[in-house]
């Protein structure tokens, strides 16, 4: 009976589909332009400290968060801006946090590496590699024990495969059938070292060894990421237990904004190749055009709107005040 779709129904599906993928496109562009502004703030010496840019990896965060409800949980990493934005954070408050301002998500106390937002289920970025694998698993534990049917997504770089606690919690999640999705963003590098120098065996087997359902996807193809994520999330929500998703991807910039001369660990050609051939935004843009959901101009229009929104957000953050010094002793204890 699957062939008997009325035009009307097909039309509705198509409209929803179009709306969805345009929203996805806009989100990916938002992340890209957010990061460009971060780099700009750093270069202009307006941002304290450093930040780790997500540009190039947008399809992972967006493809996955698009499969989540707002009350589902995520934990994020030092390279966390993409996850936060994809889960629904406001660029205004994010920039404010990056500048250490009181209007920031953490009242300026966390900075780039610790953005957290209860309103969107964001349990926090984490500056300890693998530091949040326990937290995400615990969120899955709560979901199960409080019977909320929420799901927790644990984002981490392939470098976190080096942390033993990951294996400890994957074992727990599988034993207790917790609704946790472990998302390994394999962007090929642990800081300045290629992951193959630090990772024996295969990535997927690290999860299947615990009996955890696992899949590997092209992390530049947001539709592929989203499809598998949707399946895993649904399964977890229904009590099917944890899953592991390896997303092969690439970070366009340095490990952090200050990592400019990278040729001792990776070539300019390699970087160029990913940017020209495998850019997740271009890939989705082309597909949108192929489907007739957009044209070059309408896509440019989206970028333009986002660009303006980001400028406004930066302006807001730059002008926002620092927290009063008395804040320093607040929130040590609840």
């Amino acid at each position, binding site marked *: 009976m699957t062939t008997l779709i009325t035009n009307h129904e097909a039309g509705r599906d198509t409209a929803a589909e179009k709306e969805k993928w345009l929203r996805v496109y806009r989100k990916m562009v938002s992340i890209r332009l957010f990061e460009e502004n971060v780099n700009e703030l750093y270069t202009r010496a307006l941002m304290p400290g450093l930040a780790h840019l997500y540009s190039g990896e947008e399809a992972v965060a967006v493809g996955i968060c698009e499969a989540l409800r707002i009350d589902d949980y995520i934990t994020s990493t030092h390279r966390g801006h993409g996850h936060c934005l994809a889960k629904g954070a406001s660029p205004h408050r994010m920039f404010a946090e990056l500048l250490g301002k009181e209007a920031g998500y953490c009242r300026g106390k966390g900075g780039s590496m610790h953005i957290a937002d209860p309103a969107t289920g964001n349990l*926090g970025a984490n500056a300890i590699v693998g530091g949040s694998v326990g937290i*995400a*698993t*615990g969120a899955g*534990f709560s979901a199960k024990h409080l019977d909320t049917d929420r799901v927790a997504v644990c984002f981490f770089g392939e470098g976190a495969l080096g942390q033993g606690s990951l294996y400890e919690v994957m074992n*727990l999640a599988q034993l207790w059938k917790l609704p946790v999705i472990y998302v390994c963003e394999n962007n090929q590098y642990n800081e300045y070292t290629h992951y193959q120098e630090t990772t024996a065996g295969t990535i997927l087997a690290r999860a299947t060894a615990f009996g955890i359902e696992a899949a590997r996807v092209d992390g530049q193809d947001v539709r592929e990421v989203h499809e598998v994520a949707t399946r895993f999330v649904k399964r977890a929500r229904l009590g099917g237990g944890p899953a592991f998703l390896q997303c092969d991807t690439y970070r366009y910039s340095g490990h952090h904004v200050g990592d400019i001369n990278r040729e001792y660990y990776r070539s300019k050609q390699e970087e160029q190749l990913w940017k020209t051939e495998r850019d997740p935004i271009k890939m989705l843009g082309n597909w949108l055009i192929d489907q007739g959901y957009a044209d070059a101009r309408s896509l440019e229009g989206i970028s333009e709107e986002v660009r303006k929104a980001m400028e406004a957000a930066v302006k807001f953050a730059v002008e926002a005040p620092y927290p009063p010094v008395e804040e320093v002793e607040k929130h040590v204890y*609840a």
Partner: protein
Amino acid sequence: MPERELTFAQAVREALAEEMRRDSRICILGEDVAEAGTPFKVLSGLVEEFGPQRVLDTPISEAGFTGLAVGAAMTGMRPIVDIMFGDFITLTMDQMVNQAAKVHYMSGGHWKVPMVMRTTLGATRRSAAQHSQSLQAWFSHVPGLKVVLPSTPYDAKGLLKAAIRDENPVVFFEDKMMYKLKGPVPDEDYTIPLGVADVKREGDDITFIATSSMVQVALGAASLLEKEGISAEVVDPRTTWPLDEKTLIDSAKKTSRVIVLDEGYGRYGVTAELASVVAEGAFYDLDSPVKRMGAMHVPIPFSPPLEDATVPTEQSVFEAARKMCK
């Protein structure tokens, strides 16, 4: 009606059971906590009452289940993790210190981590260097954590209930040698606020500031001193953080002589902090330097005569005090 007496272990169990009845979000996670009720049998009967969904046997993954508890606490549960021996907190430091202790602050007050870690301390069980440490100084060092060191069954029940109801990560150290110690414990619900010291014995000539296992040692030494006509006060801070500095200092001012006792290592340990607080706060009232007594600075040896030499005893405390009061 005579006062009801419970052992320290029973008092801990009663606190847990009462709180678990009160609040279904509380669960216990640890190795062999369910049917076995831990090697010390402290938790016997709890899984029978609350079921395996609330009393969960874990794999031997201290880092993993502590981390899980942090996340569970952030998202609506009130987990209690059981770390069988205090020596194994080494494996949980990242989750406790870099995560649990900092989440509330780093998130600008948005997330909270209401969890309790129960673990043990104390030597002289012939368990050797990896099962005999008293590492409370480490957690006491860390802003964001609270640290509880109960010394009687009464305190154990009241303080544990307070710890469970606290909105912060709290580490609760139980002296293994004290599990069978008996003392009066009211049947009813009561809590003892964290951060309030208790004068366990009043006296005029010398103050013992003692924690956990050392409170009993100090009380014993005080009895010996009494026979010599020396009146010793025993002050138990009960929590190393928050620390009730005032009660400690007031006692020091009153007696003008202080010995600080904690079963951990003295160097960079609990006695260093307590001695500093007193030396500063009672500076103009002290007759002699504050004396610190704690574990000898060695990994705890297995051999009984050696192990016995590593920990302050009633006799050694008595002698130190007598010398000080001369």
